């Protein structure tokens, strides 16, 4: 039987849709691990990137730290977290959070730095105070790049969460790692398809959120912003 027929059979087997190793539970695990890590990472990274970008200070430091951060292999971060904190979701979430931070810091910093100085001057001239200027002028203009950073982080976190199966984590990665260990190609292939679909769904849905958040007035500027976005792949 061809591999594709076996995979179809795997997907149509009702046993793979129920229980703790069923697709619904594994989906929830994967999404939960990823969402918590991206949210935690955003809570840390966005204030840093936006703050430094707004005040224009410590920029080289922030970018430098991010650059070193992305040189750390995601696989190594996971295994180190496992060795330090042991089994469970905590080491996985900590590792994924660490991975989520650099792209969000870099992108939000660059986004705030790239706001046209004339626009900021105009805002000052119109009597905006700093907080109002940040919230009502700079942030809306920075949304496309900030969102691109969140999107990059989220897709990488979803990808790395699949690797978390190597350190006994849940999620769709379980099927890949267990399938490889059991030489069950149908399971391994099905898991790979599920991980790929989840990563693509993450990319597309966050792109949709970005479309909703970008103010109409600057939507025309979106294309060049997307070209400038710093994408990075760690897993």
């Amino acid at each position: 039987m061809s591999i594709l027929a076996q995979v179809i059979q795997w997907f149509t087997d009702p046993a793979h849709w129920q229980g703790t190793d069923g697709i619904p539970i594994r989906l929830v695990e994967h999404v939960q691990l990823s969402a918590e890590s991206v949210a935690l990472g955003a809570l840390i990274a966005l204030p840093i990137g936006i703050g430094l970008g707004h005040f224009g200070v410590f920029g080289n430091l922030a970018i430098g730290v991010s650059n070193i951060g992305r040189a750390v292999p995601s696989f190594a971060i996971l295994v180190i977290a496992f060795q330090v904190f042991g089994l469970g979701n905590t080491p996985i979430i900590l590792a994924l959070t660490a991975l989520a931070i650099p792209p969000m810091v870099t992108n939000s910093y660059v986004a705030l730095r790239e706001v046209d100085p004339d626009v900021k001057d105009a805002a000052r001239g119109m009597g905006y105070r700093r907080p109002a200027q940040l919230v009502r002028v700079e942030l809306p203009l920075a949304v496309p790049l900030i969102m691109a950073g969140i999107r990059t982080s989220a897709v990488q976190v979803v990808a790395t969460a699949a690797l978390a199966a190597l350190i006994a984590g849940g999620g769709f990665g379980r099927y890949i790692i267990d399938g490889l260990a059991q030489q069950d190609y149908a399971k391994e292939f099905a898991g790979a398809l599920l991980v790929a679909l989840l990563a693509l769904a993450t990319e597309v849905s966050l792109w949709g959120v970005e479309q909703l958040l970008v103010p109409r007035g600057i939507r025309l500027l979106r294309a060049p912003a997307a070209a400038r976005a710093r994408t990075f792949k760690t897993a």
Partner: protein
Amino acid sequence: MPDRLFLDIVDPWINWSWLSTHVPTILAALQEHLTLTLVALVGGLAISLPLGVAAHRWTTLRLPSLTTFGIFYTIPSISLFALLIPYTGLGAVTAEIPLIGYNVLILLRNILVGLDSVPPDVLDAADGMGYRPLARLIRIELPLALPAIFAGLRVATVSTIGIVTITAVIGLGGLGQLILKGLIESFHTPLVVATVLSIALALVADRGLAGVQRLAVPWSRES
């Protein structure tokens, strides 16, 4: 009291005696890592350069090629390895197809940005001086696109060095093999050594390419 009890699970982060006796193992892992990375970069360039030039020349190619490789780029490496295993088995081919594909996207984008950034005046001047299209491309456009191409190459290099560790799952991995060993045996030393070497390799390669760029493109101030 003995130094180590039978059940003593305290493992130092670096066991120097293991390290000193396993230098050849570490060097072999490093070499495999470098080879996997180099092939992924050369393969990426070999596909993205002609594709980038073609997509710059015939703009209808642009969106389809960027979209195709963009989708490929979004798919996690572990996923692509697992999808390829039934067809290409465990080995270098399975490792390189995803790595090369990812680099094609990064490089393609940057090649297009670079070629787009060549000022029209410069092209007019080249035409006026009698350059034929191929000579204009090789001697005018590509050199002016080099800063952007180098920027892409640096991102691709750092990214590839990290992802290569994941190929440990399919029996390769270079330094990733040592990370996996550290995981399976709960032995910190190979994990620490491989992590440090991988970060160092990425940073040195990045700085090295920046240096080459300064020599190759002296007129560019971009570092």
